[in-house]
């Protein structure tokens, strides 16, 4: 028996010592290393089959485990009612206890009602540019408006100031109302138009830009009319809330100084 060319001589001798079957089993070169015997073609295939089977099994297991991983949804159910230890079991004390709870419920309900806005209030959805006039849960008016554009204005020269044109978020109230309002232009209005900032206050006055009415709600913000009604529904303002003429008239007719404004 000649040693296999792929094996060192020592291993061939060892194989010869243990017989041809053993040599065939140990030889990594497979059946070809044992001349004179019919090659067992199934060996390599068997190995491949086993690999495939193990891999497929592992993949199947992983798939099954992943299928059982994630979130299991079930219909929402109310929290089960649990009777607390402080609830008396005797009839008379239980009656008194329940009466106290009812009385507390009324008091809490009244406190919660007191926190709700009274009368008409204004709600502004600044992302979708909508204004709602509401009373309680009812909506009296739904109007398209324009809120802050979110743009940033940077001053090149001078004090190198920066303004962000966002509408404020939160609860406010109408502080004052004016008919035919005059806009007292702030510095950014001049910076935006690349104009020098006037030293004379009279040069800041701008007539007609704010429409028929303005409802001031603090920090220079107001609900007012606009010359650019075609842009209503888009975020184009410098933070104020612009409303179309007809809707502004309805808002004016229903709002008072102190009317609450909610912007979200």
């Amino acid at each position, binding site marked *: 028996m000649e040693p296999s060319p792929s094996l060192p001589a020592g291993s061939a001798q060892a194989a010869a010592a243990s017989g041809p079957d053993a040599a065939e089993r140990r030889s990594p070169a497979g059946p070809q290393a044992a001349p004179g015997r019919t090659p067992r073609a199934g060996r390599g295939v068997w190995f491949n089959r086993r690999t495939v089977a193990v891999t497929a099994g592992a993949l199947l297991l992983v798939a099954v*485990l992943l299928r059982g991983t*994630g979130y299991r949804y079930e*219909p929402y159910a109310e929290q089960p009612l649990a009777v607390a230890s402080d609830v008396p079991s005797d009839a008379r004390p239980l009656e008194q206890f329940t009466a106290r709870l009812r009385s507390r419920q009324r008091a809490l309900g009244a406190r919660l009602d007191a926190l709700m806005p009274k009368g008409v209030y204004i709600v502004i959805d600044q992302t979708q540019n909508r204004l709602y006039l509401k009373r309680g849960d009812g909506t009296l008016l739904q109007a398209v408006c324009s809120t802050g554009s979110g743009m940033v204005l940077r001053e090149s020269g*001078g004090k190198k100031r920066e303004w962000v044109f966002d509408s404020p978020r939160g*609860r406010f109230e109408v502080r004052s109302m004016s008919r035919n309002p005059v806009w007292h232009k702030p510095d950014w209005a001049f910076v935006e138009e690349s104009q020098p900032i006037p030293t004379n206050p009279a040069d800041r006055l701008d007539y007609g830009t704010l429409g028929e009415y303005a409802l001031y709600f603090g920090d220079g913000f107001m609900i007012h009319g606009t010359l650019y009604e075609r842009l209503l*529904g888009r975020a184009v303002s410098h933070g104020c809330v612009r409303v179309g003429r007809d809707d502004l008239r309805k808002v004016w007719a229903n709002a008072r100084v102190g009317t609450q404004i909610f912007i979200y």
Partner: protein
Amino acid sequence: MKASRIRTFAAAAALLAVIGAAAGCQRAGTPAAASDPRDEAARLQRTNAQLQKQIELAAGKEFYLVLDPATSGLTLMLKGAPLQRFTVRGLQVGHPRVAWASARDPRHVQSVIWSGGELDPPRQIDRLVIRSAGPGKEASESTPPPIPPTPEELYPVPSRYHVRFADGLSVEILPREADASVGRWAHARAAMAEQWGDIRSALRTSDRDAIRLRITLDPKDAQSFYRSLPPAVRLIVLDGEVEPAQPAPAELGDGR
């Protein structure tokens, strides 16, 4: 004699029947009468605790959501004022599980005020920065400013999204019907991405969604909710079961 005896027996039987029925009623009523007041007291305690929480929310400065399963309403509120109401079309609770083993969180969504709710994926705004040319100088170009996009153009809404709260609650918003404008392949991709996201979330040991509340809204409401939700929102879930008129849970998904 015979007839009068029969009448006597009949009268006695009728009397016994009435007494028996009355006793039966009393027996049936006695335990109910004994258990109802305690249940009622427990319910009142829970209602009062929820009212207390609602007062706390209304007194705070943050925006908050009130989910009322009994009226199928999800209302965005601030300082006690309802700002926007969305009709809930379906409500499910999801719990994580890993390799079929449940990792259920013992907390109930009703028992706490959930806070710090943020949209995921977040709603982002690309701010346009304008640099002034300086006084006396002309603006860089005389081109008119572009017409700003509409909210629909500005904020594309994902088909499914979450509002993730601190302490592990996640509200998953699901539109009621599939968006017809999206193709099948896009749907399949979105579903696979969602599934993979669920697996990753469930496998996380920390910072995962411990409880999920899946809320089904009409597609318009789902989009509006995404566009309008303020940051750092809080949430309370009120007492009550989901109305039976709503779609059965089986219609809402595959149970996962």
